[in-house]
């Protein structure tokens, strides 16, 4: 599967949290030829099933990457302008941005700022606050009232740009980069035997409440799961210990949110296959779908594989596609070994009561 064109389509689709429909339809269409069945559940998760070749009952392994992107929400109509609140965007990046307001139809707009000539000295020294910003649709107050209502969602326009080498920039690489990775893994599995049933889920509302991860886990009852998300790439000003080199391979997360033996298996496979990778130490909440999956429906052993991107939660997220190829190799190898014995390996054991306590 060619990564770039798929990623371009997916990142450019609009899918704010709770309004993932357009992105969901596209993912369902792309999943169709790679799965035996594709369905969309009650909250909008896109779920593809690719049965494995092992004897029944086969382990059910869920891959999950989230479909939704961060967004703004219209909070008031102020004449010809729109006031808004943000759900995830760094407010500093909003002034001067191009947006699409998902009103009665998609409406292009901009978030402007006072020209510097007209600013007071005080204004020049500070960033504008969200409460001072407005969206300008270039329409009259009457047209705005007709086309937009409070609660309409807004996404930033961030074109898909091919940078040098294998690097790209776009909006919504968080998390369409990993939705693309998941599709590429399904594609690779057409040619690789895997004993387990693979359930690929493009989940909704990760950026909001984690709803999709929970309902999909209730519905699918996976035996284990791997969440796929972006993480922080190293860039100036970011602390070294929780950032990873862009193009340095996937980050494999370790910590209480993850099952230690899934983490270890991923690390061992990466070593064995000589896939460059990083260890992502997560002492508590990972801020990903793994958090919800792990405790739902009795709890599913969970792993987390992330790809580092720069400028997360802006419209110019930057990724290196070499990391996608590497993550696909890692996931494919993981799924190829996920048999009944592996499930057994994940089971926590009681001590041997015949033996004396240490």
């Amino acid at each position, binding site marked *: 599967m060619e990564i770039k064109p798929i990623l371009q389509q997916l990142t450019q689709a609009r899918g704010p949290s709770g309004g993932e429909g357009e992105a969901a339809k596209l993912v369902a269409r792309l999943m169709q030829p790679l799965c035996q069945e594709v369905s969309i559940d009650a909250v909008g998760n896109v779920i593809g099933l690719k049965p494995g070749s092992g004897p029944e009952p086969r382990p059910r392994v869920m891959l999950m990457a989230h479909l939704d992107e961060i967004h703004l929400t219209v909070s008031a109509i102020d004449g010809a302008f729109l006031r808004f609140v943000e759900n995830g965007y760094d407010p500093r990046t909003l002034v001067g941005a191009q947006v699409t307001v998902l009103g009665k139809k998609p409406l292009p707009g901009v978030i402007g700022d006072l020209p510097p000539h007209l600013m007071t000295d005080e204004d020049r020294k500070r960033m504008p606050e969200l409460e001072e910003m407005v969206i300008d649709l270039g329409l009259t107050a009457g047209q705005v009232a007709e086309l937009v209502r409070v609660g309409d969602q807004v996404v930033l326009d961030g074109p898909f740009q091919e940078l040098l080498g294998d690097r790209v920039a776009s909006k919504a690489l968080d998390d369409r980069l990993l939705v693309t990775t998941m599709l590429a893994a399904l594609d690779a599995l057409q040619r690789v035997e895997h004993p387990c049933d693979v359930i690929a889920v493009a989940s909704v509302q990760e950026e909001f409440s984690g709803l999709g991860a929970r309902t999909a886990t209730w519905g699918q009852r996976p035996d284990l799961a791997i969440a796929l998300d972006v993480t922080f790439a190293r860039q100036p000003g970011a*602390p*070294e*210990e*929780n950032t990873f080199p862009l193009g340095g391979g996937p980050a494999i997360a*370790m*910590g*209480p*949110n993850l099952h*230690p033996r899934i983490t270890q298996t991923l690390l061992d496979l990466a070593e064995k296959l000589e896939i460059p990778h990083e*260890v992502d*130490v997560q*002492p*508590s*909440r990972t801020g990903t779908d793994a958090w919800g999956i*792990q*405790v*739902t*429906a*009795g*709890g*599913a*052993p969970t792993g987390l594989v992330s790809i580092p991107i720069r400028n997360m939660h802006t419209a110019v997220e930057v990724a290196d596609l070499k990391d996608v190829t590497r993550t696909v190799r890692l996931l494919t190898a993981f799924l190829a070994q996920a048999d009944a014995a592996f499930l057994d390996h994940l*089971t*926590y*054991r*009681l*001590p041997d*009561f015949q033996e004396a*306590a240490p």
Partner: protein
Amino acid sequence: MSILTLELLRRLSETPGGPGDEAAVRDIIARAVHPRVDELSIDNMGNLIAIKRGSGASSRQIVLAAHMDEVAFMITKIDDDGLLHVAASGGINRRTVLGKPVQVGPDRLPGVISLRPPHLVDDPEEYRRPPKLRDLVIDIGAKDGDEAKSKVKRGQYAVFRTPFRFLAPGEAPDPNALLPRAGRISGKAFDDRLGCAALIELLSGEPFPFDLVGVFTVQEEIGLRGALAAGSRLKPDVALILEGTLCPDLPGRWGQEQTPPTTRLGHGPAITTTDRSHITPPWLLQHILRTAEANGIPHQFKHPNVGGTDAAGFARYWGTPAAIISTPARYIHSPIAVADLADFWHGVDLVKATLQTLEQVSL
């Protein structure tokens, strides 16, 4: 028959068990309760589930829960000087960490939390601020980064190394005799190994009319994670949560009035009416209070709206009625805590009496 000894309590307290790393604590508990329960299993999260079958007189299923984990550090980076950098797993009181001994990783390697000698501190503000976690390092005595990396891996846990002690009055009792009903103790992880000890005790006695399901949970300190998983699978009729809770019954600043403490040491087990994440159903609260009064068991109310417990985790999915009975413990979420064994035993008595008469309450 009771099986609780000071020695068992010492091992429960001293053993490391950060969130997600509860295996060593779980093994101690499993060995202690194994001869006394009918079924023992570990779920997908690592929760230990011990079932004591009832006499058959009741079809109810009652959960008693206590969490095995304690607040901990996780090693995020090993630097070229061989010092370990950390992040917190759970809410550690940062004011208490400087200059404390710790144990690192599965081999429980000794280490200390380093700080500059006061002679070298030039910014007086540094004395007034709690240290930031990212400024803390653990020194295990490694001569360089390579030696440190041969002993410790990123992602391993560190917890405080605090010897368990029997405080005054009088001589320390025989550690292998049954746990005395009076006296005070100090040690780490009383939140919630005291709850674990109480649950071990309650599982060891005579069967109740109903099936008693003891759940020793994981990852309470980072968001009630074990309770959420167990609560989403089990659907008990009632859950009682056994905790070691806050007890700031200390004199305030000299000459100033102290705000009312959350609980007071030596005033009996604390009953929660509401905390940050849970409201105890009034009928269940009533039943516990009536039981305490009928049996003359000293008790106190925990100050409302403070802290959060596994009760919310068990209530989340099926609306399981849940209540919390706690042993007050001073200084929790730090290297050391102090508790009163009379409070502990009155708590055990109260839970036992509450369970014995629970049949009379319609759910």
